[in-house]
């Protein structure tokens, strides 16, 4: 992945960023603008198939994700950036399935024909995450140079969730040695936030499950899983948990409230999208990056750190 060709990429926000993850959408766009990067939203994009379609028929999920890749290709892009871990995972999985599984290729061709659009062919478009985008298009050195308002030693636990690196085989660009992302110890978010002045803490649950998939069917387990993540982050000395997935972010915020209500266990760690933290470090106001939309109100802490 060459940094030069990432200055202008196709943008697939996905459904969550239009709803509960609105602040992530807003802060991602603002950070891009501030860094001189260009995001061109896919025209008439559709849901990636998320968990719901995948659990009913994974081939239809592959088709739904592939249709978005077709749109990117038709708009002249060979890279599409998806900031949501679920969308990123599904688009990557579609790329993999269409390169390795004949049945997926056949179903995708049939449904594309029926829908009356071009059939996506494997290898035409590469899906990248918002972390890849900023890390490769800008990099830590340039980012540090552009920081106007350092995060000033803010203690951050970076939480990547379980979808960003899993399953390993759909991420062929990861685990390629220096400069590449690691599936066992992801570090791109750590690298970017450190460049912005944060002090990352050692956090042993950075890829652990937040129970997002259980949120409706077994919310008590989700609450306990999230509470354990929050308490572990606090035990590691974190003031903030940085997130890069709207599902994880919402889960952490909602179950932080629920843990206090149902279990009587209050935690004080604040939850912010990494793009919100980067945006403030780049000189954007807290309002501009949507901090007022967060449930775990971090404004007092941000003011203390000179970031409010």
């Amino acid at each position, binding site marked *: 992945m060459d940094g030069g060709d990432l200055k202008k990429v196709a943008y697939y926000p996905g459904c969550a960023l239009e709803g509960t993850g609105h602040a992530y959408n807003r802060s991602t766009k603002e950070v891009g603008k501030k860094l001189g990067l260009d995001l061109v939203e896919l025209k008439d994009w559709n849901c990636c198939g998320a*968990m719901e379609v*995948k*659990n*009913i*028929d*994974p081939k239809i999920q592959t088709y739904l994700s592939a249709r978005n890749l077709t749109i990117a290709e038709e708009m002249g892009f060979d890279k599409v950036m998806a900031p949501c871990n*679920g969308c990123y*995972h599904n688009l990557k*999985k579609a790329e*993999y*399935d269409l390169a*390795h*599984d004949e*049945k*997926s290729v056949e179903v995708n061709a049939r449904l594309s024909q029926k829908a009356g659009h071009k059939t996506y062919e494997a290898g035409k478009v590469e899906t990248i995450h918002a972390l890849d985008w900023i890390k490769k298009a800008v990099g830590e050195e340039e980012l540090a140079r552009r920081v106007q308002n350092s995060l000033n030693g803010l203690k951050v636990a970076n939480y990547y969730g*379980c*979808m960003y690196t*899993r*399953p*390993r*085989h*759909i991420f062929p660009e990861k685990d390629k040695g220096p400069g590449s992302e690691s599936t*066992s*110890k992801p570090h791109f978010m750590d690298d970017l936030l450190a460049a912005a002045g944060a002090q990352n803490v050692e956090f*042993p*649950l*950075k*890829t*652990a*499950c937040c*129970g*997002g*998939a*259980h949120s409706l*069917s*077994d919310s*008590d*387990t*989700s*609450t*306990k*899983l999230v509470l*354990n*993540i929050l*308490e*572990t982050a606090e*035990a*590691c000395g974190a003031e903030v948990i940085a997130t890069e997935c709207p599902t994880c972010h919402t889960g952490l915020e909602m179950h932080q409230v629920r843990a206090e209500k*149902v*279990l009587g266990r209050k935690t004080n760690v604040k939850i912010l999208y990494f793009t919100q933290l980067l945006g403030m470090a780049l000189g954007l106001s807290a309002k501009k990056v949507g901090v007022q939309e967060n449930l775990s109100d971090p404004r007092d802490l941000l003011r203390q750190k000179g970031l409010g």
Partner: protein
Amino acid sequence: MTTTEAPFAELLDRVDARLTDAPLTATARALADLQLAEAEDVLEAWLESKGRTPTGDTVEGFRLLALHRQGAKGDPSFNACRETCREIVYLRNVVTEYDGDMPEARHSLRLQSMVVKHLALFVGGKMVEAGLGDFCCSSRPIRHSDAAAAGPTIQGD
């Protein structure tokens, strides 16, 4: 919600009791090994609930990692706890590097307790869900009963 309703309730109570600031009841090293063994118990319970015999083998010198690999066979979503298991081993190794009851050892021991707790909650949640169907994101489709027999198109790792 009471803790006694959940799988691994006793283990979780024990871990919670250890998360207080009470004096250590054993050497840090012995407790780190105990917590590693508790994590193995969790994965044994998962395998047994699936009608499988837990392996006695090791991976990279640790049975926990072998049990995880065995538990994830045919169930890619179980890989969501792969790094959790590796962290338990890593923290055990960190604790054993310190000699005696030092603050660094205590800190790592505490984190190891929390990671073991996460493993128990995650696996317990999956065991409860198993009766309803597997809803985790990378799971095989719940309505394709033949998918398990045919094996997933893509093997997760």
